[in-house]
């Protein structure tokens, strides 16, 4: 088959023409097209998760010197399908003391928010659910529903572990939302648009020299660390720490209701990787993408998979943090650093330097702030480490 015949715009135009020839009104056509798009996104998301769960289990297995799933299907690829079928046939147990309405609403909300988040992700120049001009803000708004679902599940289960898990969700997701949002504002400042597709277009040089990750490495680092926390991944997975609170907020859920939380977890991680790809790695940009728009989808999915791989890698490698360490890392390190970076980038952009000089200045500022921050952190940590830890405060006799 000729590769160049795969033109997504042609498929769209063909479908559009088909609808027009059926003699429908303009609004009707819009509604039908949006409906088809929404269903495609939904199916894409659900199939993707089946693959992602397999991928992550396999990766974690390989990294930890195990085999990972390898029984069901080739390379264990059908393991997730088998798991889903098993969960479907399990009894749906609701605890007697549970708050029934929020208890049953929570898994639905968790699934709902990840599907909604898929809407503004640009898979390619034209393949995007809704190219709205407040894309980044929309993602923040939709993402906040996730922590609400977790809190509802934790509170409604009337279980001590679930409640601790729910409170940890609130503390962690809310805290790390601030560095995340502050890191996302910096590419918005540089490109002057909140459109997700606009952000991808703004990094438009062919071999990736214009990617924001080169000029704003610190912003990407802050974003990545915060997205690990937002994705509830190790080393920030203490809201579902198995060894302390068994499973966290979803402990009381059985069968398919538990599976929805699981699905939301994986899709959320993938969405965060996709946001990272779009705003720091040029999204669908890549060589020959202008001649062959369908390549954009491949580039986008490939880059996102790489980012997802790094997330899974981190998860399989690092031990869990303590909650006080996690909180002070966010509030005392990430937030001030992100604020300083925000101010520095704003000033540099306002200097109106010519193009290559501006990029170099941005890079230098990023690296300088990162080094200063890490040095200060190391110094204070060392001071705390070498301070004598006494169980009592000595009374100094006054003469």
């Amino acid at each position, binding site marked *: 088959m000729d590769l160049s015949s795969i033109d997504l715009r042609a498929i769209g135009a063909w479908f559009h023409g088909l609808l027009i020839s059926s003699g429908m009104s303009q609004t009707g056509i819009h*509604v039908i097209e*949006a*409906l088809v*798009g*929404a*269903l495609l996104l*939904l199916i894409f998301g659900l199939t993707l998760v089946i693959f992602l769960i397999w991928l992550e289990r396999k990766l974690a297995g390989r990294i930890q010197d195990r085999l990972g799933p390898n029984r069901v299907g080739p390379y264990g690829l059908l393991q997730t399908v088998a798991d889903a079928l098993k969960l479907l*046939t*399990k*009894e*749906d*147990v609701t*605890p007697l003391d549970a708050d029934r309405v929020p208890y049953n*609403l929570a898994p639905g909300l968790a*699934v*709902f928010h990840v*599907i*909604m988040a*898929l*809407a503004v992700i640009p898979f390619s120049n034209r393949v995007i659910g*809704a*190219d709205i001009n407040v894309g980044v*803000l*929309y993602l*923040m708004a939709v993402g906040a529903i996730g922590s609400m679902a977790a809190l509802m599940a934790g509170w409604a289960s*009337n*279980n*001590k*572990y*679930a*409640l601790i898990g729910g*409170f940890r969700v*609130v*503390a962690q997701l*809310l805290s790390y939302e*601030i560095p995340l*949002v*502050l890191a996302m*504002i910096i590419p*918005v400042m540089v490109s*002057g*648009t*909140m459109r997700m597709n606009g952000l991808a277009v703004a990094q438009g040089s062919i071999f990736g020299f214009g990617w924001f990750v080169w000029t704003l490495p610190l912003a990407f680092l802050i974003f990545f660390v915060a997205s690990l926390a937002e994705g509830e991944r190790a080393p920030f997975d203490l809201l579902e720490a198995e060894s302390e609170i*068994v499973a966290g907020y979803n402990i*009381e859920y059985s*069968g*398919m*209701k538990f599976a929805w939380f699981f699905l939301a977890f994986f899709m959320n991680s993938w969405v965060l990787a996709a946001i990272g790809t779009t705003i720091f790695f040029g999204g669908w940009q890549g060589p020959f993408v202008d001649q062959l728009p369908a390549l954009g989808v491949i580039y986008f999915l490939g880059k996102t998979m790489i980012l997802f791989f790094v997330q899974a890698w981190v998860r399989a490698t690092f031990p869990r943090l303590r*909650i*006080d360490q996690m*909180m*002070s890392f966010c509030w*005392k390190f990430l*937030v001030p650093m992100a*604020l300083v970076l*925000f*101010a520095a980038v*704003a*000033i540099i*952009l306002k200097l109106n330097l010519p193009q290559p000089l501006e990029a170099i200045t941005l890079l230098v500022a990023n690296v300088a702030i990162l080094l200063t921050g890490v040095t200060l952190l190391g110094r204070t940590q060392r001071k705390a480490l070498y301070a004598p830890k006494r169980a009592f405060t000595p009374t100094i006799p006054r003469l």
Partner: protein
Amino acid sequence: MMIDYLPLLILFVVAAVFAAIAIIMPSLIGPKNPNKMKQEPIESGMIPFTDARQRFPVQYYMVAVLFILFDIEVVFMYPWAVLLNKLKVFGLIEMGFFLLILLIGYVYVWRKGAFEWD
């Protein structure tokens, strides 16, 4: 302009319907033989001896309050960030004042010990 939001509305409906199916389906498909013991909250093999909803450390609530303050401030920055290229130097000074006020609050919260977990 508003037509941009039509797909979102449709996706909202589709996602809501899917979520509703997701909630209702498990109770229709699976077997149903509930009993008292099964419906107790899990406490690692113990029969629960207190209600789960008890007093909780205040730091968690503090974090939620801080989040509201900081996140709203950051959301205010977004329209400014989009317009940064069109703003004159005065816009930069304005944001400087905004950040200064945010910084005063931040330092106050830090000195008060709201970030400390013991």
